[in-house]
Every structure is written in C-alpha cells, then in structure tokens.
C-alpha cells in the first residue's frame, strides 16, 4: 500500500468512526431517559409491594397498566369530550389573542386601555375563576371551552404583541423606501416575522388548554377526563385515577406534538 492510500484509508475509517459515534450518541440520548423511567417504574412497583402500601393509596404500575387496558372503552368515552373542549378552547383563545394583539399593535390607545385589564384577568387563578364561569355559562360545553380559551389567551397575547413588534428597523426602512402601505407592511413583514413568536405561544397553549378543559370539568361535568378524575378519587379507584391522569398527559403531549409539527412545516427559517 502506498502512503497516499494509507492516508485515504485512515481518513475513510475516521469518517466511518465519526458516523458510528454520532449514531451511538443518538442511541444514548434516547436510551438514557427510557432506562431511567423504566428503573423508576420498577422501583415504584417494588416499593408498593415490599412495603405493602394499600391499593387505594398508591396502585402498582402494573395495576395501572391493566386498568388502562380493561377500562379502555370508558377512558376513551371520557377522552373525546376533553379533546374537543381543549381544541375548541385552544382555537378560540388563540384566535382572540392574535386579533387583539393586532389591534394593540395598530392602536396604542387600544393597548393602553385594554392591556392592564388583560393583565388583571391573567392574575386571577384559573381555579378561582372556573366556578364563576360555570355559573355564567352553565355546566355545558361552553364553560369548559371558555376556561380553556382563557388559560391560552394571555401568553399568546403577550408573545404575539412582541412578535408583531419584533421587526428590524431596517426592514421598516426598506418598506418605507418601497412606499409600502400599512397593510402591506402588516401582511408582508410584521405577520410573517411574528410567526416564530406565535408558535412558541401555541406550544404553551397546547398543554394549558388541556388543563383548562380538565379544571372546567372538575367544577361540573358528567363526562370528560376531569370528571373521571373526580369520580375515581371519590370512589377510591386509584388505579383508574392514575390511568386517567396518564391519558390526560397523553392528550397534552398529542397537542404539543401537533403544534411542533405544524411549526416545522411553517417556520422554515
């Protein structure tokens, strides 16, 4: 073998080694949290069994898993209304926030008049305001959607206002040199440049809208994951309670993932 060939081989094997190392890194990145979670679940199972913790205080993970399977039809019956309320609340709350943010950016008067009110409403704990909303809107769908919408509203409002204002002064000078109208500046510059801000707000809203819907169901509902949580708690069906909680967080993850995928498709820069 010549020296050059040797060097080339060394380089090639270096590259192969690098690729292998990268693959190993990715594997480790996935395997570590999975292994940690598996260990914790095992410790939990073992702890409950060894110390003889009564089932109504803490169920074993295996009991939760079998409940998930056995009670699947009942869980799903309660899953759909919560999904529906979360999505409706997500849509209504974010749409309102975006529209009001646009109004704020166009009119300083509107911002001065309404922003303090928005801040005040945001300071009221959602748990405190939920019963009031149920009194106003009744125990039906509307109250839950309103609560979910309300919890989404404020972070999106703040982020969207920031996003619409986060246009570089030079981009605005460019618009001025092109004699762009206010609406052209809005549609061609402000709105697209606010999208990254909007999506980070939507990711927050994806999880909080589920919280809103569940809190709404706590106050008054016959169906929904929130109602099932209350029901399981008062009947000491702890395995069912845990399974419901598991499903609730699954719902949040689902919405979060959907927003993340949408973000990847839209915000490509």
């Amino acid at each position, binding site marked *: 073998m010549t020296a050059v060939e040797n060097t080339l081989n060394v380089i090639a094997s270096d590259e192969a080694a690098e690729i292998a190392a990268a693959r190993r890194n990715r594997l480790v990145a996935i395997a570590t949290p999975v292994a940690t979670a598996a260990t914790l679940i095992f410790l939990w199972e073992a702890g409950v069994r060894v110390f003889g913790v009564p089932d109504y205080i803490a169920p074993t993970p295996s009991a939760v898993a079998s409940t998930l399977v056995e009670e699947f039809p009942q869980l799903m019956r309660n899953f759909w209304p919560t999904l529906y309320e979360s999505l409706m609340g997500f849509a209504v709350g974010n749409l309102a926030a975006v529209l009001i943010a646009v109004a704020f950016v166009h009119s300083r008067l509107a911002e001065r008049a309404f922003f303090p009110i928005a801040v005040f409403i945001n300071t009221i704990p959602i748990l405190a305001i939920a019963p009031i909303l149920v009194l106003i809107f009744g125990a039906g769908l509307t109250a839950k959607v309103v609560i979910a919408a309300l919890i989404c509203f404020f972070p999106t409002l703040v982020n969207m206002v920031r996003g619409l204002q986060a246009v570089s002064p030079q981009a605005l000078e460019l618009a001025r*040199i092109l004699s762009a109208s206010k609406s052209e500046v809005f549609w061609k510059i402000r709105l697209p440049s606010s999208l990254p801000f909007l999506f980070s707000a939507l990711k927050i809203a994806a999880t909080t809208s589920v919280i809103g819907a569940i809190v709404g169901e706590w106050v008054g509902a016959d169906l929904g994951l929130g109602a099932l949580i209350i029901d399981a708690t008062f009947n000491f069906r702890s395995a069912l309670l845990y399974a419901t909680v598991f499903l609730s967080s699954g719902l949040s993850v689902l919405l979060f993932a959907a927003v993340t995928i949408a973000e990847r498709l839209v915000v490509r*820069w």
Partner: protein
Amino acid sequence: MDAVSLNAAAGTQVPAASLRNAWVKFGQFTAIQDISLEIEAGAFYSILGPSGCGKSTLLRLVSDLIPPAAGEVSVFGKTTEAARLAREFAFVFQDATLLPWRSALKNVELPLEIGRSRGIDIPVSDKSPMELLELVGLKGREHALPHELSGGMRQRVAIARALVCKPKLLLMDEPFGALDEMTRDHLNLQLLKVWEETGVTILFVTHSIPEAVFLGQKVLMLKAHPGRLHEIVDIDLPYPRSIAQRDTPEFTRYSAHLRGLLEAC
C-alpha cells in the same frame, strides 16, 4: 411636457440628486450642515469620511427617510417623496435586510409585489428577477432561504432586489463592510459590471479608501462635527477597472491623497 422631460429633450442632464444648502438636525444636534452638491446622472460616487460624519444621514436624506431641517433636496428634478413614489432610487443596507422566510428569488420579487394591489405604476427592470440573480452570480441558488446563504451571497441578493425596479439611482451604505477582502473584491467587480450594464447612478458609502478609489469616478469626502462636505476628488482611472490597477502609482497616489484628507478631518 414638464420641466424634467423638457430638460432631457434639450440634452441638458438633470442631476441624479441635488442638495441646496441642506441641513439635517436631530433635536439640537446638527448632523449635516449646509451641504450643496449636485450628483451627476450615471456617475459612480464613493463617499468617505470619519465615523459619525453623516454619510448614512446623507443617503437617508436623499432617499426621503429623513427630511431636511433647512434647504432643498431633489432627485432627478423631483422632490425626494415624488422620486420615492416613482421608485427612482433603491437602497442597499449594510446588512442585507432580506426577509428570512422568503427565498432569494422571492426576496428579489418583493419590490414588485408592493404597491401593485394599489394600482401604483412601478417601473420594472428589463431583466427578470431570475436574470438579475444570474447577473449577481447566484444562478442555481434562487430557492435558497437567506439563512442558507453566505453573507456575501445575501448582499448580492439585496443588490438584485435593489435593481428589480430599474432604479436610476442606487444608494449603498457600506454594503460590503462586513465581508472579507476576497469576497469584497469579487463583489466590487460585479458591482462595476452592473453599473456599466445598467447605467445607474451610484452613491456608495465606504470606510475603505482603496474601495472608494477602486470603484468611484469621484470621491465625496465629508468631515465631522458637524457633518459637512470637505472635498470632491476626481479619480481619473480608466474603466473597466481591474484588481491589478491597485498596484499602479496613480492608484497609490489617490489613496495617499485621500488618507491625508481623512487625517486632516
């Protein structure tokens, strides 16, 4: 027939820009003091001066981004506002100021989209946006997003965008200031090519004396505190210019002269 076309018909050239006793103030601070100046149509002007002497302010004044506190500014015989509405000039900023969500081609097309819905009659270059990208050497990269391009490529997209409405005056504020020397040389040559092909008037602000001499037919030297016109130096070097000219004694003489003026400021 208005005065402008009469002048053109008579063969007397309307200056690309004309300042008469123009002042610019920011509150109490005088950024430009009493500048009178005529920019010859079709010429290439470099603008030099110490930092803070009002070079950017001068371009912003001509491009109707700021009004004069006193005096008059006109562009091709019109008010700066009328010239802006007619898209007679274009601006190239120090950073390319591309819209990051638009591809190179879409960025070049932006000026054509703006104003169209309001029925404004915008001049359009004989070259298509695609051909303009080719002119600045970006063929094949038209669908790349700005973050996928290098700094020099982004600046070239900005130049193509500036040319898309067939401007008669191109205002450039340190467009290559952030680039390395090799890229800068390359873009300087490309810019001269564009200038020769389009006949556009160019006002080119720079911090680099060699760049100013290499590009310009004339160098406007400003001085600071407050910003005033110091001197206009004619650069009698033949076009097309080449990098090799930089080593000629004439080139060195011009550079030395300008350096002397700059130090005296």
